[in-house]
């Protein structure tokens, strides 16, 4: 395509449904690569609490592959840690591992009702680090690329604070208790999102990963989770994206009803069918396998997948999960190249055409 916009203009134009010169190749989720780590000569565990390294690492995918966004943080434990969980960053483990929750903030379900979000939680854990990284990204790259950040959705965040099996059991046996916790966490997610926007994030993605129909029924999604997501969308300034992993065909219309500017889905979603169910003003992203394709596929397969996703009706070339660090450099190059070469032609929903 003939490029008349830079990455930032293209991504933000797309997210606000203004005419753009072609589909963007970006996402609102993690994009750390081992190539990026090698370029900065740093280890993965060393970046999680260091705003400078976090910002620099997030920008490497733009510098190395032309990926059109830089996103921090890199793990899914930031909010949970600020709310009282202990995390493990695997400082001494040879293989690259993402931080996980070592100790739950609410280890006993008996304590769930009494759980309170601390008044100063935005200053706890690594939330200030993420905000500082966002500020640095905006200062360093804010004229060229889109700066993004993400939060977990309230239900997925609850699964970080409470044992997940207990949360699922209580969702059937003591719904009110779960609703009360989700109510508190919804307010916390909104507060984090607003603080990220204030720090420099151009757009936010809410990752409600535990809500797919592989796990919960559509009726549970509608009655328990959707009200929280509606509140999150209504309280955050656009643009904002809702991402759900796994099977989403049966809840895609419910996802759209939440009020986000875009929804992000995995390859398990039938995008062609979803496009019929989702209002035209809601963008659909994803449907590009971040692991099987980008780690184990070939450049030719990547090119084909990008083209198929656009033909099916996605509005951006957006890997449907974090880019796995081991993703092959040639595959990431192919993803960006395919977007540039055939994106404008294949993107039939281009609002500018």
């Amino acid at each position, binding site marked *: 395509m003939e490029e008349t916009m830079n990455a930032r203009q293209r991504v933000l134009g797309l997210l606000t449904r203004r005419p753009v010169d072609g589909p963007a190749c970006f996402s609102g989720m993690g994009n750390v690569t081992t190539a990026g780590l090698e370029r900065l000569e740093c280890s993965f565990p060393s970046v999680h609490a260091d705003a400078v390294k976090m910002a620099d690492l997030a920008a490497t995918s733009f510098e190395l592959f032309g990926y059109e966004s830089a996103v921090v943080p890199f793990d899914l434990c930031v909010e949970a840690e600020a709310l009282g969980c202990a995390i*493990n960053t695997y400082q001494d483990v040879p*293989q690259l591992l993402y931080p996980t929750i070592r100790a739950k903030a609410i280890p006993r379900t008996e304590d769930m009702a009494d759980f309170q979000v601390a008044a100063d939680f935005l200053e706890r854990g690594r939330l200030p680090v993420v905000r500082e990284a966002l500020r640095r990204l905006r200062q360093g790259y804010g004229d060229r690329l889109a700066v993004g950040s993400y939060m977990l959705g309230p239900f997925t965040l609850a699964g970080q604070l409470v044992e*997940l*099996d207990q949360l*699922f059991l209580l*969702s059937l046996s003591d719904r009110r208790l779960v609703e009360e916790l989700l109510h508190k966490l919804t307010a916390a997610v909104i507060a984090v999102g607003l603080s990220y926007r204030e720090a420099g994030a151009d757009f936010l993605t809410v990752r409600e990963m535990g809500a797919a129909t*592989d796990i919960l029924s559509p009726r549970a999604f509608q009655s328990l989770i959707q009200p929280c997501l509606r509140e999150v969308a209504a309280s955050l300034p656009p643009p904002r994206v809702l991402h759900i992993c796994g099977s989403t065909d049966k809840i895609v219309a419910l996802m759209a009803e939440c009020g986000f500017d875009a929804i992000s889905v995995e390859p398990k979603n039938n995008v062609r069918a979803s496009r019929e169910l989702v209002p035209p003003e809601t963008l659909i992203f994803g449907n590009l396998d971040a*692991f099987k394709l980008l780690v184990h596929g070939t450049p030719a397969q990547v090119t084909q997948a990008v083209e198929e996703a656009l033909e099916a009706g996605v509005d951006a070339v957006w890997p449907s999960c974090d880019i796995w*660090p*081991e993703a092959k450099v040639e595959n990431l190059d192919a993803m960006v190249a395919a977007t540039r070469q055939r994106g404008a032609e294949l993107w039939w929903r281009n609002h500018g055409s």
Partner: protein
Amino acid sequence: MPSMDEYCVQLKQAVVDYNRDQAVAIAQTIVDQGLDAQKAVFDGLIAGMQVVGKYYEDQYYFVPEMLMCAQALYSALDILKPHMPQTDLGLKGQVVMGVVQGDVHDIGKNIVKLMFEVAGFEVKDLGRDVPLDDFVREQLSSDADMVCLSAMMTTTMTGMREVIRKIKEKNPKCRIMIGGAPVTEELASKWGADGYAPDANNALREAIAMVSSLHEMYQQAQARD
């Protein structure tokens, strides 16, 4: 007074309805009356879990319902198990299982563990976020027949390859099953695993299938007797 068959039907229904109190009460009655605890496990609890598996497959039940059913099953099993005679199904053995380091998602592993226990296996559960070498050490020290590794996160999965290599090197007869979202049949076979389940759904399905085949073996053993 209900017959044994009627008790089994009630027990099965209690599991399907995730009615833990009812499952416990029936199991206790069966034990108190000196009835066949093994038949109750296979024709009641496992038969119930087979229905649950079907409901899950049909997306009538989801993970919360499945967990509630498993809870009812576990509670009844606790009562029945001490009263079960040993029927030789030719499948007794030890299983080492756990979720690999870097991963704390253990619901799938816990359900599979429950199924192994129902089937009479001795399970050594290493838990979640387990350092890779612990699997190897545990297999070597216990000489377990089977090692089950689970991972939901891709980055944690790559460590499985090394575990499989180390165990197979020392004990080629040990069966290794790997499971989790990022696992593919191609990877499982490339790494020398004996079986795989690509996601939590599939792990549950596989566990149910295993129990179903045990049910058939039990019925065949009964018919022989």
